[in-house]
């Protein structure tokens, strides 16, 4: 199977004031097409830092991140922006644009990519259909529940047919019943649409659905399991 994401001896050091903090201390990871990987670990173990690096939102201090075979540390800001269009992000706090409707939020990545109005409207409606929110597409985020907002965020992440989905605690901010719906949706996307998924979670139920889990601690992957 084709390797979509590869991290080689990945290190990231932050400056917290004047104190250097080693968030990642040499992480190696490979994700194949169609994979469903859950990254687990306590707070401060480096999960989010790892996610930011494979999402091309940040650059490593040392080591290599290859996305679709491209070394992100060699890319400039513009090339990184182009690369991010091929990655679907889902955040813990949804991060929808409050003044835009659900449909406009889903259209946004396509607008940024320069798709025509007709194309993006059609696709946004299809995606909202997939996540089961077609009838709510003209509502603003403030008029949607947490679970609905997260489904809009998932639809948005899928807008540009990304190489993979990156999810940062997708069920971390919603009630358990709604979380079940999200887990079901994520599973369906992976199984039926063959979407590659990498997610960070504390939610054991979500982690159990993943094909593979890695456990992180103090900036290192300490355990890797295949479910």
């Amino acid at each position, binding site marked *: 199977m084709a390797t979509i994401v590869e991290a080689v001896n990945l290190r990231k050091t932050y400056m917290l004031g004047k104190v250097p903090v080693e968030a990642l201390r040499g992480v190696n990871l490979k994700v194949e097409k169609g994979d469903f990987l859950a990254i687990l670990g306590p707070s401060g173990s480096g999960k989010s830092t790892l996610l930011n690096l494979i999402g091309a939102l940040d650059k490593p201090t040392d080591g290599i991140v290859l996305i679709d075979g491209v070394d992100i540390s060699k890319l400039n800001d*513009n090339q990184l922006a182009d690369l*991010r269009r091929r990655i679907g992000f889902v955040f813990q706090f949804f991060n929808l644009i409050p003044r835009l409707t659900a449909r406009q939020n889903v259209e946004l990545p396509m607008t940024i990519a320069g798709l025509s109005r007709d194309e993006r409207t059609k696709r946004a409606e299809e995606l909202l259909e997939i996540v089961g929110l077609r009838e709510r597409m003209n509502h603003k985020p403030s008029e949607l529940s947490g679970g609905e907002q997260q489904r809009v965020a998932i639809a948005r992440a899928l807008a540009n047919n990304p190489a993979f989905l990156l999810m940062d605690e997708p069920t971390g901010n919603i009630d358990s019943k709604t979380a079940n719906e999200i887990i079901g949706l994520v599973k369906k996307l992976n199984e039926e649409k063959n979407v590659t998924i990498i997610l960070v979670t504390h939610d054991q139920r979500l982690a159990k659905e993943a094909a593979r889990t890695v456990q992180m601690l103090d900036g290192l992957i300490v355990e890797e399991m295949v479910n």
Partner: protein
Amino acid sequence: MNVADVLSYAFSAIKLRKLRAALTTLGVVIGIAAIVALLSFSQGFQNTITAQLQKGFATNTLIVSPRGGIGGGAESSLLISDTNIIDSIDNVTASVAIMQKTCFVNISNTIITINVIGVDFEKYRSIYQSTFVPAKGQIPTNPQNDSIVIGARLHDPWQNGTIFADVNDTVEITWMRRSDGLFQNKTYTGKIIAVLNEIGGFNVGGPSDLGVYIPISQAQEFFETNECNMIIVLLKDDKEATIEGVSAAIKEAFSNQVSVTSATAVLDIISAIFSNVEFFLAGIAGISLLVAGVGIMNIMIVSLMERTREIGILKALGMKNRTVLIIFLSEAAIIGFMGAMIGIFSGWGLANVVARLGIFGGGRLQGANQTAMATQISITPVLTPTVLIGALAFGVIVSVVFGLYPAWRASKLKPVEALRYE
């Protein structure tokens, strides 16, 4: 991201904070309105004066005055008979001497201080065929010595039909002169034989609505002098070569002891003064626009902080730095554009209201013993395309320039940090 999408995104951000956007725009509106009002008003003022001057001071005339210029301290003198010398110069059609003294004039038991002008009625009329024309009465070729011709404003000063002086009224003219250190009054009584048509505005040398005209022979006798204040010269045409040739010939004939002023030269001086005044006024108004610019910068920095997370999201979704910059600049440009458009309309309206109210309309003939002021001038503000486009461009440019720094900061935000921002 295409232009329409960028603009619509920027516009949606502005719409979200309506009051704030309105107040920011108001700053631009005030600045642009001030510029447009001042410039269109002063342009209108200049047009009025130029038109009035061209009317009262035809381009094919020259004014010869004693050295020192019009109204300047004269060292040399010009005699009434000097018209003979001027008439003999090539390309001169006619010339008329003008003698003018400030007198107390008693009309209908009201004493006003006004210039009494001695001219040869016939020659004067031959030069000012369209303005030295009676509305009432007759201007004879050989007038009686006590004949007086008055301007329209002395006839009906309040422009409401209340007649102040009319044909056949008697007028007492008193001239105060100083001789051997003593002030002496001289008075004679004349009779109004004609009232001129309304001329409007003011002019140099030509007939005026506030003029009191007496025959030159009477002026010579009453003022006890043969010296005149100026000689108006009518040329064959208003070609530059004619104006320059005759000017030079006159100067030569009087050994450079006289000044020769052409209408064109006066107009040039006036327009030079006006462009300075305009520049100064626009400068002051421009400062208020700079203040508006600082307001835009301030509000955009606040907006940048509030929207840090949004910028992080946009970047995570693949938006380029350049596009973030353009979105923020578009917001500034939209504010500038709207402000400038509203400003142009309100400035234009303001100039018209001021013109309508006649705040700068000049004085009217006042009560007894008051100096009569210039006749009323009506000003129509003029909005030239240059001012219109300039104001629009200036409003947008100032807004964009002050938006540059916040926009640049927004574009440079790191996605990870922006997303983490609370």
